[in-house]
């Protein structure tokens, strides 16, 4: 369980990233965070693993209170919280397997890491993670030779290799084409259901959020302005979050029949 209590984030330049956020995210939930760019979605996700330090309030992940000042504690926290990025953030010059093994860093002694002598059980875990996302056949290829969708699945495997309690995904499908975006979202959803990992995903495509998440959190100007199950996040509510009417930009044109009400809203505009 993740709990935000009165969390504020003020960036060094004075910009207020989050203001007075109170949230409770339950274990095993799939949460989508929606909002316009600059609304604080990325900040919210990055406070959870301390990539962005919060400036006041209390944040707990599981039993641990997050302390942005203690590097050692943050590393231990990060080993339990995996993160997936919009631009995949793989090291493209090394092999897929070595990228996945970066996920074992926190559990690997530094000297082993430096020499690349990972333990057999770590390698086994890396292979199992690759099998789970269906690209184990690419294990020894350079990450740069993979397509975008494949690279994002390697990133998911890297996160799985951490054996995480929480997966954070920051716009994981924003740079993918619609069919691939659905594939990656299906992978995330399946993994969340199979392994019971709490999954928090930022997105700006409303139809993806509605078809894969259990719960939607809407953000505007660093504040949580909507929080409820998918069924409650009607077009009217989301327009309230966005402070504008929905457009075709807000959906992923797609092969699947999941667009429903948003399409009609877009057509009206």
């Amino acid at each position: 369980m993740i709990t935000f209590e009165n969390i504020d984030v003020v960036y060094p330049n004075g910009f207020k990233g989050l203001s007075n956020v109170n949230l409770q995210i339950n274990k095993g939930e799939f949460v989508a965070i929606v909002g316009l760019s600059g609304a604080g979605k990325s900040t919210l996700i990055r406070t959870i693993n301390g990539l962005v330090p919060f400036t006041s309030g209390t944040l707990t992940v599981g039993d641990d209170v997050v302390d942005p000042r203690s590097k050692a504690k943050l590393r231990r926290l990060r080993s339990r919280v995996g993160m997936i990025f919009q631009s995949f953030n793989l090291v493209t010059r090394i092999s897929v397997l070595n990228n996945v093994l970066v996920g074992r860093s926190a559990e690997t002694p530094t000297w082993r890491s430096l020499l690349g002598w990972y333990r057999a059980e770590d390698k086994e875990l890396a292979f199992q993670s690759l099998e789970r996302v269906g690209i184990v056949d690419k294990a020894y290829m350079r990450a740069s030779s993979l397509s975008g969708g494949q690279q994002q699945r390697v990133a998911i495997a890297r996160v799985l290799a951490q054996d995480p309690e929480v997966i954070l995904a920051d716009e994981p499908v924003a740079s993918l084409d619609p069919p691939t975006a659905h594939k990656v979202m299906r992978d995330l959803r399946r993994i969340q259901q199979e392994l019971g990992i709490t999954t928090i995903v930022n997105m700006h495509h409303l139809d993806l959020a509605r078809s894969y998440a259990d719960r939607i959190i809407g953000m505007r100007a660093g504040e949580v302005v909507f929080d409820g199950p998918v069924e409650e996040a009607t077009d009217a509510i989301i327009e309230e979050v966005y402070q504008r009417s929905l457009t075709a930009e807000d959906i992923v044109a797609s092969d699947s029949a999941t667009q429903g009400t948003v399409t009609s809203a877009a057509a009206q505009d």
Partner: protein
Amino acid sequence: MSNRGTNAGPGSASRTEPRFAPDALDRRPVKPSKLGYNVGMLVVGIIFIAAIYGTGMDVRALVDLPASIIQYGQLMAQGVFQVPDETVAGYWTQSFAAMFESVAIAWVGTMVGALFSLPLGFMAARNMSPLPVYVVVRFILSVIRAVPEIIFAIAIMLPLFGFGSGGGGALAGAMALGISSIGTLSKLISEAIEAVDGGPLESSRASGSNHLQLIRWAVLPQVMPEVIAIWLYRFEVNIRASAILGVLGAGGIGSLLSTVFGARDWDRIGIVLVVIIVVTMLVDQISAFIRHRVIHGAGVRSGGGEPHDDDGAPGPGAGPEAGTTVEDDPAPKSARAAAGL
């Protein structure tokens, strides 16, 4: 105009309708002023003329230049193109041996520089080291860079290790090149490190890596090809520098050159110059080829599969049992990838 009308939504068409039809000329940008450029050119010209008069250069000597080039060129060509008898063949082998000593001095110097420049490069990279370390290392490096390798050789290394070809002089030359290489190499490497893509660093950090693990698996793989290219380029520079250091007594081709120059032995000078030029060009070409390979890879013969997206089903072929593990360090790996393997 018609463009604007169709782009705007139907509701907003009236808003974008212009009140006055703009003149076609109104859309053209105003020609920017060239004043700054002209003043700049003028300043460059003034400095050029001032430099010539300030140093008292006798420009008229240039008139005699073509004649002297032909005269000395002929003298040297006579040495190079004569049919080599016993003694002349000896000159050639002596020159080649001395040149290879120079190349060896340059190689040892480059290795010393390479060894120290990698850790120092990380310490001098703003994104990798704490501010105090960064400031101190940057300062030390800039002091090293401010001292030319010739000064290192004359003031420190030659007195320490002794003069002359073979032994002391060669070691002195190599150390002088090594230390001055550290200055530039570390600086260039630190800049390569600062230009690294931050994404993999963030993901590595998010996985709980510590600083060393992050350097090893997120930074080194990104910078290693560039670092190798920087090292090789410095080797090319060091070959020239070691020839110059030889004139000061650090051994190698420079020592030979200063001996034959002292004797005004023009046909031997010709032979030495030809050897210097041929060997330097040869090493440059090889080095440039390797650098290109390391940076750009082998071109079309890349071994990796085509980037395509299957729908998640693991294809046939390599599974976990395939081959050995890939735990080598990034340098040979990128070289291997560059070779298309």
